[in-house]
């Protein structure tokens, strides 16, 4: 006789494991909420900055207890609206439709700046030069070869190979994709309306999860081009293309060139409640694919929590805090915009 093979017993034990882990998870989330800490969640891009600010702030204010989880901008905003966290970090401003559903107004406080860089795997002697229009064509699949006349025109004297371009993008929904495609939509009419956190890329392109996934694809396959977030590219010493800005200069991404992108926009920023795009900046020397990352808080909060949170937000906007993030390659928010943001924070109602 055959020994009986029991298929159902295997699926049974898996179900039980799922229940147990769910119960354990719920225990932990509750205990955190009762401890009187301020909880934040959101942007993974801004997570290193928040970690640094929180540890410095807690050294200054002994009673303060804060916690930030990098779960992704979208998830952070969702948790803020559901009331499971007290503040959120996001690289993509909240949609008006979502903000309308909130129990109070949602303040966008610009806390730092970042950028998206274009990285590639190509044996060339000097950094590749690319313009917005050419980038838009590479990333929608209409420029297919590295020695295409349009790329060659931007890179005189560079020996471009007769090799197909493989395009690597993010497969997970991401603020990095949102910033990059928002820039493409600004410089190329073909991209208008197709930008966002999840994009319908052309079929022959490849998608991978996270900055690390895209980098893996680019590093592993000669002839591949992809986009990653600036700090990740600097830490991993990836080759970065110089991108033509509005003034026609080819600019390499750095904390300094990113900071320039937010110059001279104080008026526009405060008129739009800081939800302002700084891609394709007209400033001299500015890197064109730059963006703010925002701290989101409600404009009406219970007294105790609100006090602590406003204090933390004010600390983030201080010169000290803005200077401290330079060592992890974040660009500081210009002083004028910070002054306006402080004013907006002063209007938060506490009851």
């Amino acid at each position, binding site marked *: 006789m055959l020994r009986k*093979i029991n298929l159902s017993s295997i699926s049974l034990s898996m179900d039980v494991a799922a229940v147990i882990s769910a119960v354990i998870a719920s225990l932990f989330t509750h205990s955190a909420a009762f401890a009187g800490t301020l909880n934040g969640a959101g942007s993974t891009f801004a997570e290193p900055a928040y970690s640094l600010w929180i540890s410095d702030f807690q050294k200054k204010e002994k009673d303060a207890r804060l916690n930030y989880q990098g779960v992704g901008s979208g998830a952070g905003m969702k948790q803020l609206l559901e009331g499971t966290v007290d503040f959120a970090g996001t690289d993509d401003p909240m949609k008006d439709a979502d903000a309308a559903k909130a129990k109070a107004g949602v303040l966008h406080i610009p806390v730092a700046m970042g950028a998206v860089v274009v990285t590639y795997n190509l044996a060339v002697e000097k950094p590749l030069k690319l313009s917005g229009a050419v980038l838009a064509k590479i990333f929608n699949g209409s420029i297919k070869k590295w020695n295409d006349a349009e790329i060659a025109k931007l890179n005189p004297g560079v020996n471009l190979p007769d090799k197909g371009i493989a395009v690597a993008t993010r497969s997970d929904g991401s603020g990095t994709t949102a910033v990059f495609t928002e820039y493409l939509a600004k410089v190329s009419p073909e991209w208008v309306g197709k930008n*966002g956190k999840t994009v*319908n890329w052309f079929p022959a392109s490849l998608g991978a999860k996270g900055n690390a996934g895209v980098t893996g694809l680019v590093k*592993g396959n000669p002839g591949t081009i992809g986009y990653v977030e600036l700090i990740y590219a600097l830490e991993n010493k990836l080759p970065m293309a110089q991108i033509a800005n509005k003034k026609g200069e080819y600019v390499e991404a750095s904390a300094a060139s990113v900071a320039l992108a937010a110059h001279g926009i104080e008026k526009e920023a405060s008129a739009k409640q800081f939800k302002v795009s700084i891609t394709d900046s007209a400033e001299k020397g500015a890197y064109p694919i730059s963006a703010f990352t925002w701290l989101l808080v409600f404009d009406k909060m219970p007294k105790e929590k609100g006090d602590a949170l406003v204090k933390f937000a004010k600390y983030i906007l201080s010169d000290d805090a803005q200077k401290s993030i330079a060592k992890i390659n974040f660009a500081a928010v210009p002083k004028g915009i910070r002054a306006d943001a402080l004013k907006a924070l002063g209007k938060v109602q506490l009851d």
Partner: protein
Amino acid sequence: LTVAAKVLGHILLGSAGQSEVRKSDFAFVLFLRLLAVLVILVFCSIVFYLFKNALPILSRDGWHFLTESSWNPNEDQFGALAFIYGTLVTSLVALVFAVPVALGSAIFLTEIAPSSLSRPVGFLIEMLAAIPSVVYGLWGIFVLAPFVRDYVQPFLQKYFGFLPFFEGTPFGISIFTAGLILAVMILPTITAVCREVFLAIPNTLREGVLAMGATRWETIRLAVLETGFVGILSAVVLGLGRAMGETMAVTMLIGNRPVISSSLFSPGATMASVIANEYPEASSQLHLASLTGIGLALFIVSLGVNGLARLIIAFSKRRMS
């Protein structure tokens, strides 16, 4: 509510009170039944949750949700067909590669290898099942994908390039590579179950076939493979189930594009991989509902494939007896 309580009471107690003499036995039976009901409740709650949360997209698109292939969250187009296709094709590729190898190694372990060899080798194969899938994914990215790109895909294109399955530029990252990694992952499952099946076949059967003058190959075919056919099918179904639900390693190797291409070298996406990719940052309520709907579809497809396999098993059992 009283009806529900009665039904629950009946499920929990049933005839337990009558047949059990001791109180401790009664309590034990009650406890076991309670656990069994808990599992059923979890199952029902999963189905209910998936259905309830997928309702917005199901009521908007109906069946078109499953038959449309365009997936574009920015324009609120949600069609799951490309993901269903990806799941089925990667699982099929996995089975094509894994089943012969698994069968071969199971036969070797039980029929040919001396026990001093079969024990450690069998243990190693079972250890393969314990490796986390993200580790398989990493190995896939660093070892398997470059190997496939540099050797396997050019070879297939050179000799079988006229077939539509092997068109396009080889990147290493493709439906084909994802299927290969799945094959490696389901190999230990199928091998281990087959080995158990073959070990359970009584030796008298082999001896009988041998006594009839059969060669070694004929003995294996008649006494082992044909007798164990139902068990082999069960093993394949178990492997298929794992292949269809596998997420992490596939996401790392498939290229994540919702396209239906005849070529196995094209990037693709599976139901599990799109949920893993897009759920954390889903941009709208409808997007979330669609991802949950894909979860429901995965559930139904797995159930369907398993049901079909069970039918085949039941049918062949009857034919054999």
